[in-house]
């Protein structure tokens, strides 16, 4: 299970199995989507499989994730998402009404994100060989001229910005899956981010890095960027927006909000000189009202993410091994 958690084990699978098997320079960029040139146009191309349990949770469903996830992977290259595919793997016995609900959610999410689902596929596996419904989406988008967004472009002096409160999606899913109640309902933050990215690019096309911190959370995304660019990241712990409900749930379970999954957030590295302007543009967009400057990219400790604690100490924030595990007490 750990190999799907977005941490060290996932990275190893990529490094040791997939990259050697189909290695090429585009794949080696390890961005959320591949950017490909075709007859002068630059296309972003991405695919992802969605296996969330339960299929429906506060704030969204498997269908929303399957659309927003791929839309966001395209947006993280600065692309304007255009078309999606949708492939279903259904477990024998799953109710048609469930499939219908998911499909409708996908239709609505696609409309909201401004993309069209233009092709698809359906397979059925025997009962006991699946979790009800799995969905794989692939997407294509167009990268505007002059935009070059990839993890390798982070550089010392960049401001590190997150688009809003973190941890809501992971805690929302956990609360339903494990039957945990935290006193307040926590809804997933799943949302399409292409519009927010367009608003940021309108301010400055020189956005260096974008990443949506899904599995592995903010910590995994920042570590991947630090390693890909060979720079360091310094976060200010108190500047990271963690909703009270997430902080309480994480405290209760012994989890770190920095490692909890998000679905409707992005982290951006932009030139320090453009930070205030980009922040203002983000805050003016519905998906970025809670945007915050959380740290900066530094030349010290290359490849590492370090947090300044609220008390004035420092600590390393590493890539998680696999999934976080709730502790005993």
């Amino acid at each position, binding site marked *: 299970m750990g190999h799907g958690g977005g941490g060290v084990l996932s990275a190893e*699978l990529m490094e040791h199995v997939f990259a050697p098997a189909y290695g090429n320079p585009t794949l080696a960029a390890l961005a959320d989507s591949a950017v490909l040139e075709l007859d002068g146009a630059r296309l972003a191309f991405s695919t992802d499989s969605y296996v969330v349990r339960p299929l429906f949770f506060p704030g969204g469903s498997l269908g929303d994730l399957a659309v927003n996830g791929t839309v966001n992977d395209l947006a993280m290259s600065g692309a304007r998402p255009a078309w999606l595919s949708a492939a279903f793997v259904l477990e024998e016995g799953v109710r048609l009404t469930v499939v219908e609900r998911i499909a409708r959610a996908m239709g609505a999410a696609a409309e909201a994100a401004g993309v069209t689902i233009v092709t698809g596929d359906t397979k059925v596996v025997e009962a006991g060989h699946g979790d009800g419904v799995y969905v794989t989406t692939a997407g294509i988008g167009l990268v505007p001229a002059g935009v070059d967004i990839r993890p390798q472009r982070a550089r010392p002096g960049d401001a590190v910005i997150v688009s809003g409160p973190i941890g809501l999606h992971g805690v929302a899913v956990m609360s339903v899956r494990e039957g945990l109640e935290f006193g307040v309902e926590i809804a997933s933050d799943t949302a399409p981010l292409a519009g927010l990215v367009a608003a940021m690019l309108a301010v400055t096309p020189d956005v260096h890095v974008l990443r949506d911190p899904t599995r592995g959370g903010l910590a995994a995304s920042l570590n991947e960027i630090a*390693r890909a660019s060979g720079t360091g990241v310094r976060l200010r712990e108190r500047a990271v927006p963690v909703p009270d409900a997430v902080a309480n749930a994480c405290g209760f379970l012994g989890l770190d909000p920095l490692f909890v999954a998000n679905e409707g957030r992005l982290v951006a590295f932009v030139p320090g000189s453009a930070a205030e302007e980009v922040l203002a543009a983000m805050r003016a967009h519905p998906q970025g009202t809670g945007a915050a400057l959380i740290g900066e990219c530094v030349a010290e400790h290359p490849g590492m993410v370090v947090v300044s604690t609220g*008390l004035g100490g420092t600590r390393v924030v590493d890539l998680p091994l696999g999934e976080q595990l709730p502790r*005993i007490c």
Partner: protein
Amino acid sequence: MKYIDEFNDPALARRLLDEISATATRPWALMEVCGGQTHSIIRHGIDQLLPEQIELIHGPGCPVCVTPLDVIDQALEIASRPDVIFCSFGDMLRVPGSDRDLFRVKGEGGDVRVVYSPLDALELARKNPDRQVVFFAIGFETTAPANAMAAHQARRLGLTNFSLLVSHVRVPPAIEAIMTSPVCRVQGFLAAGHVCSVMGTAEYPALAERFGVPLVVTGFEPLDILEGIRRAVRQLERGEHRVENAYARAVREDGNPAAMRMIEEVFEVTDRNWRGIGRIPSSGWRLTEAFRAYDAEHRFDVGGIRTEEPAECRSGEVLQGLIKPTECGAFGTTCTPRTPLGATMVSSEGACAAYYLYRRMNGPTPQAARATREEMNPVA
């Protein structure tokens, strides 16, 4: 969240740190007993902010770390059985047994489940009458009442398919063992607040008196810990050795009588092995004769398993505060969270894990944690 933020206030922390600096006229070595405190200290960088005279020694209070290898192997043996649903708290799953861990057993087809309460395991037993449901009942005085409650409820409900693999340990005998060690350097203790919230403080005055050490009951937020240190240092400077409660919002002198009654009804005191430390008299609990039917060790006849720790692992010395994790030759090289030699490297409360996770600015690079192709284990 206001309630938590109040205990994480930088201005108040600065004031406490200044007071500690002004009070300490010479070096003092304090042990924080609980692994939760250790992680809070390292996570917030408290040890970096303290004056040089104050050394914090990390204690044995991580229940995952001290669960003996024999018991882990018993758990692995039971969890591998096709008729068993094996339930555990999440942080036991990566703890290495002799040749594998519970994650590996799960990957090999064992029905291993993470639960958040022993009562969840009890519910699983009720819903699966044709399966044996076993709960891994480890921990200090904090988890003992709920685990006792699970056995109590199982008997009340007449469940015959539920049992506990018990490895409970108690804090006061561990303090005694640390203080009687000839190489002990500990001059005062930050006692674990949540343990005292269950058991009260009645067992501590005798320890403070016998060993001449201050014992300050301390919570887990940064200001709790700084206040605990401040009070312990003040006592040491004055030549005092008393029990003080710096966690009054959670701890009463008489503890939680209902929880203690539940423990007494179900458990009896016994000698226990502590991983890396050895046998400590009267340092644990086991099910009483009346509850023996719910003892997984007996039900699955795994009491005969005996094991040996890897010689390279110095987690026992870490747990007794004799060395810092970074003083172990294997730290960060052959021993990482990916390839742990001992439980202190994988437990979320383990001192080695805390140093590895938060303190490698000058140590091995993060890539040290990455496996080579040969080390990858797709099953785990």
